[in-house]
C-alpha cells in the first residue's frame, strides 16, 4: 500500500524540490512569509518540498532581500555550492527587482545582480499563497496569470481641442490681440 502511494506520488510529482532559504539582507518580512508557507496551514510539503540547512543539499534557493554589498559574495558562493540543476526563486520585491533600494549605494540592486533569478514572486512581502502559487508554477500545477499590459488612448481627444478652441473664441483678450 505504502509502495503504491509512493509510486503515485512519484508519478504526480516527479521531482521533490528541496529548498534552501537564503536571506541576503531582507527585512525579515519575506522570511516570515517563507516560514509561514512551511507551516501546516499552508503546508508546502504537499509538493514534496522541504527546507534544508545547507545549499549543498538543495535544489532551489529561496532568495529574499535585495542583495546587499556584504552578502553579495556569500550569495554567489551559496549558489555555486548548490548542485545543478538548480532554481532560484526571488521572493519579494527586493529579490525580484531591488525594491525601493534598487539604486542605493550599498545594495547591488536585486537578486539578479548576484545570481540568475528564475522565478520572481513580487510582493512586499508576498502573501504565502503567492509563494505557493510561485512554486506551483515552477512545478507546472498552475498556469501563469501575470502578463504584460499595454493600454492606449486610442481615441484622439479631439473634443478637448475643440473645447480649447471655443475657450479661445470666448476669450476677449485673444480677439483683441488679433485685431
Amino acid at each position, binding site marked *: 500500500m505504502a509502495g503504491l502511494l509512493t509510486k503515485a506520488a512519484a508519478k504526480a510529482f516527479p521531482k521533490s524540490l528541496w529548498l534552501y532559504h537564503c536571506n541576503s539582507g531582507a527585512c525579515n518580512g519575506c522570511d516570515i512569509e517563507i516560514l509561514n508557507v512551511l507551516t501546516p496551514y*499552508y503546508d508546502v510539503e*504537499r509538493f514534496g518540498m522541504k527546507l534544508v540547512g545547507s545549499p549543498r543539499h538543495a535544489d532551489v534557493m529561496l532568495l529574499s532581500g535585495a542583495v546587499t554589498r556584504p552578502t553579495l559574495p556569500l550569495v554567489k558562493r551559496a549558489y555555486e555550492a548548490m548542485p545543478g540543476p538548480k532554481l532560484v526563486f526571488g521572493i519579494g*520585491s527586493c529579490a525580484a527587482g531591488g525594491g525601493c533600494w*534598487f539604486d542605493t549605494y550599498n545594495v547591488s540592486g536585486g537578486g539578479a545582480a548576484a545570481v540568475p533569478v528564475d522565478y*520572481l514572486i513580487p510582493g*512586499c512581502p508576498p502573501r504565502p499563497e503567492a509563494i505557493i502559487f510561485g512554486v506551483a508554477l515552477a512545478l507546472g500545477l498552475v498556469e501563469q496569470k*501575470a502578463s504584460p499590459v499595454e*493600454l*492606449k488612448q486610442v481615441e484622439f481627444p479631439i473634443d478637448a481641442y475643440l473645447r480649447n478652441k471655443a*475657450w479661445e473664441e470666448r476669450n476677449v483678450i485673444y480677439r483683441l490681440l488679433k485685431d
Partner: protein
Amino acid sequence: MWLASKIKQVVLALKPGTVTLKYPAEPRPAPKNFRGQPVWDHTKCIGCAGCADHCPARTILLRDICQDLRVLLYDGARCMYCGRCADLCPEKAIVMSPDFELATGDRNDVTQSLELFMLTCNRCGRCFDMEIKNAIDKLGLRGYRYDSLEARTVLRRTTDRLAPEVLDETGTFRRPEKIGG
C-alpha cells in the same frame, strides 16, 4: 500508561481536523482591503505624473515621446504595493486590485504601459519642458513675460551672445575705487 497518553495525543490531533489549505486547487481570494497589483484606467488618467513623483520605489516612469504623447511605464517587479499612487491619484485612475498571483519567470510580465494623449498649453505652446535647461526660458514657461525689447537687452541668455566689445569690457573691468584713494 504510555498507551493512554498516545490515545490522548491522537484525540487531541483529531480534534481540530484538517487545517491545511488546498490553495492551488481551490481559489483563495485576498481579504477586502488587500493591496495587490495596481491597475491603471487609461480612460481616466490625465498624465499628471503624481504617481511617478511619489512612488517610493520609483517603479513608475513617465516619458514624453513627442509633444502630444506621454508614455507611462510601470515595472511591477520592484513595486512595494504600498498603494500610494492610488491614494494620491486625483482622477482615481489607479485601483489596487486584489490580484496577488503575480509569480512569473519573466520580469516583463508584471509591467504595464499606458499611452496618453496630452494637450498643448495655451500659454507656452507646449506641455512639458524636458529639453529646456536655461533658467530664463524656464521662467518663460512659468509665465514670465519676456517679449519686451527692453527686457531682452537686459536678460542675456548665454555669454556667447554678448557682443565682443562687451566681453572686452568685462576682461578689463575694474571695480570702482575710492575717490582720491
